[in-house]
């Protein structure tokens, strides 16, 4: 009973069988290969359900002070958040809207299934026998956090303080903030979430790591580092005459001096008086390739390694500096540069730390229910970005900017402590007041804290920001 149709039936069956094989491989992919990643997705309702009937692990500061805890209620356990200045960091664990912040990043640890503890994961998965939740400890120090929150007050902006030796974040303030408690309250969550999502001021955004701003003068350390490491003589005096243009081809385009300067400047003067024209000339001397190379070495335009979401910013719109005016502008921190406060803190931490850039991290430890350390979070340094000599030279010049005669960053002075730092007044869109920056570290000879401050849209720019930086450093140093 053969017919030509029989051969066609066989071909069709074979094709369909192949499709079944591909489908089976697809099933294996999702159930086995992609399973770990999906199981830990912050929006996977299984993660949250695992703790709605059991206490979720606490999130605590470096001294054990609670930041987020689970409270017993009539219908199970409810999450309670203690510090609204840490809202974007600690995040929320909502059964409806998923997880954010540390609640998301350490979701597995907070339900007793830390990746460093495979036995618990295995037991929970195959026997439904879950280990009691442990806790996640942050590098945040509530004392420094409070100082930072008080310093910024109601002004929009961000402050981050970190330990340059380890990269542990000591304080992280992003204004405006919000109260996470209504977001996890079933009776209020819809209205609360709706309102937060539509707020023009974007309170859910962690401005420390996700806010992108033009850096302005605080970027000059990168131009300085690039120059020092390419054999530029920092002691050579350059002629500064406001306004400046390299040649006639710039047309009606000029670089302006903040102090309308006329005179001779070396690099120390340039940092102390924040002289744009000096750094524009340095940039034009060393060239776009060198400046771009150092900006990238310091992590500008790349997402910093962090245990929370972070923005990457940019060196320029195209990623390269392709014209002399853009090179001149980028050299003193304008142009098309965009950075986050955390990136700037890391750049200054590199200078504070002998040229070695640390890896930033919010959490420092995961502990089990008995208090034993399950996992210590201490990511090693990212690497040697500049030589120790360059770091030392820059550090000295940054001390000059704070402590020196007429230093622009005088507002950051702390009696009895040598402070290194730099202010910045970053121009943004025409018609808007500039952003005020301060980034610095102390004590300059053996730095234990780096602070980056940004105050959005403040007419005095860096002058506003510097004293806020000092307040935070004082809290960190106990002065």
């Amino acid at each position, binding site marked *: 009973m053969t017919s030509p*149709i029989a051969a066609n*039936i066989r*071909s069709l069956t074979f094709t369909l069988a192949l*499709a079944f094989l591909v489908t089976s491989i697809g*099933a294996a992919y*999702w*159930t086995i290969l992609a*399973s770990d990643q*999906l199981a830990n997705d912050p929006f996977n*309702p299984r993660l949250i359900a695992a703790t709605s009937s059991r206490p979720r692990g606490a999130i605590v500061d470096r001294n054990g002070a609670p930041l987020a805890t689970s409270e017993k209620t009539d219908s199970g356990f409810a999450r309670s958040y203690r510090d609204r200045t840490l809202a974007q960091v600690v995040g929320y664990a909502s059964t409806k809207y998923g997880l954010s912040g540390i609640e998301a990043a350490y979701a597995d640890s907070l339900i007793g299934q830390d990746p460093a503890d495979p036995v618990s994961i295995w037991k929970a998965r195959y026997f439904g026998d879950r280990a009691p939740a442990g806790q996640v400890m942050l590098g945040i120090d509530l004392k420094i956090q409070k100082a930072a929150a008080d310093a910024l007050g109601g002004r929009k902006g961000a402050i981050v303080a970190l330990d340059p030796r380890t990269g542990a974040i000591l304080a992280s303030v992003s204004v405006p903030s919000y109260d996470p408690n209504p977001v996890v309250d079933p009776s209020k969550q819809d209205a609360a979430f709706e309102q937060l999502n539509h707020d023009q001021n974007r309170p859910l955004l962690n401005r420390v790591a996700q806010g992108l701003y033009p850096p302005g003068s605080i970027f000059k350390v990168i131009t300085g580092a690039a120059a020092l490491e390419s054999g530029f003589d920092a002691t050579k005096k350059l002629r500064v005459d406001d306004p400046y243009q390299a040649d006639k081809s710039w047309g009606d385009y000029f670089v302006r001096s903040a102090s309308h300067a006329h005179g001779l400047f070396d690099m120390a003067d340039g940092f102390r008086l924040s002289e744009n024209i000096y750094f524009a000339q340095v940039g034009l001397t060393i060239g776009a390739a060198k400046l771009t190379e150092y900006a990238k070495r310091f992590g500008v335009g790349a997402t910093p390694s962090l245990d929370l979401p972070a923005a990457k910013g940019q060196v320029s719109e195209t990623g390269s500096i392709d014209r002399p005016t853009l090179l001149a502008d980028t050299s003193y921190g304008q142009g098309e540069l965009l950075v986050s406060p955390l990136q700037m803190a890391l750049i200054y931490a590199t200078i504070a730390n002998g040229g070695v850039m640390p890896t930033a991290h919010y959490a420092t430890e995961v502990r089990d229910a008995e208090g034993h350390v399950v996992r210590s979070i201490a990511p090693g340094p990212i690497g040697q970005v500049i030589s120790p000599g360059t770091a030392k030279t820059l550090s000295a010049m940054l001390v000059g900017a704070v402590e020196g005669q007429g230093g622009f960053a005088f507002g950051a002075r702390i009696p009895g402590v040598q402070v290194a730092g730099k202010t910045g007044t970053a121009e943004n869109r025409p018609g808007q007041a500039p952003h005020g920056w301060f980034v610095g570290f102390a004590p300059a000879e053996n730095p234990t804290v780096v602070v980056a401050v940004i105050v959005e849209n403040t007419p005095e720019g860096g002058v506003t920001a510097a004293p806020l930086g000092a307040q935070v450093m004082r809290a960190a140093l106990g002065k």
Partner: protein
Amino acid sequence: MRAEAGVPLGRARFTELSLLVWVAAFAVTGFVAVLATETSSFSPTAAIVPAVFLTLMLALHVFLVGIRFRGDQILMPIAAGLTAIGLILVQRLASDLLLQQLSWSIIAAGAFAATILVPRDLTALARFKWTWALLGVLLLIAPLLPLIGREVNGARIWIKVGPGSIEPWEAVKILLVIFFAAYLEEYREVLSHTQRRIGPFPVPPVPYLVPIVAMWGIAMVVMVFEKDMGATVLFFGIFLAMLFLATGEAFYAILGLTLLILGGFAAYHLFGHVQTRVDTWIRPFDEDLRFDAGFQLVQGLFALANGGLLGAGLGNGMPDRIPVVWSDFVFDAFAEEAGLAGALALLALYLVFLYRGMLIALRAPTPFLQLLAAGLSFIVALQTLVIVGGNLRLIPLTGITLPFVAYGGSSLVTNWMLVGLLLRVSQVSERMRGGGAP
């Protein structure tokens, strides 16, 4: 099998019966497992359901034995097993729909029995091919008519019948296969052998292609208006497969697939709902989609991930977080609780169904019966691949039912009729051989 030739008529269908014992064992354990995890009080309804269902299947078996039916003994138990999985999953995922689904399975069993008895002569189906074509078109247009048509979840594919509503395209898919089989039996010689070629490309004799292309075109146009991509893909697939089966010309299939991709590309730019489907397929985890159009798919993938190798166990997963899980995502739900092992076993059942159906096609005595059996088996395989592929994010998701398993009455009834037709074809072959049942 040939060794069994000459066995007296009226011999019991032992293969079928022993396979049904496995179905019974599975159905009972499945229901007990689901009930055991539901902490709420023991519901007698849920205990009665497997009993009713198994009695029903046994009745079908006794019926087949009683009329001395000599045909395939594998397909009915597979369909029974799949229906049992469907009932267990409805109990698990949407227990308020359980009695409804059970009622549908009783109607489906009745429809199966009717297909075994009527028509007396299968070739009668071929004689009335234009009647089937007309009926198919009418059924397709019906949901677009104002009084009886009904739109559910954006797709206008339902018609009101008494208290409930049915999806007529489920029946149309069988009518389409019957029509194509009959038409192609008559004209396949013309279509495959007398064609001219331009280079490597065959030029089909246009006049003979007109009726099938027209039939397919009507189906396409109607489906576009009814906004059901799953049915569109299924009809298109049936069209291509039947053309290939009849002519052996892979060119038709390749041309057809090219047209499908081009059509899909055009639809992507023309229709919002197609664009959404494709976008959610490509990037379901993006923030703008994961809480919106991609929510269902993402929740389905979470369910799969929770399944692992052996699954969370029936009743222990959280597949209920997937919206409309009982109709669109039963595969993911089953995979979460039965694991990869269960998912592969489920796919294996469909694969065995496909092989068995195609074997019946290979043994069928006439081209019409060959094309009919192959086309019907193809429907089940393609529907499975399209919905499971959509659930697994291998292809864009389309709202098509997983045969026998997904909740839905029209689907269950027509698929059981499809099994009935396949059994009838195998019966014809057995009669021609004059042998006993395999």
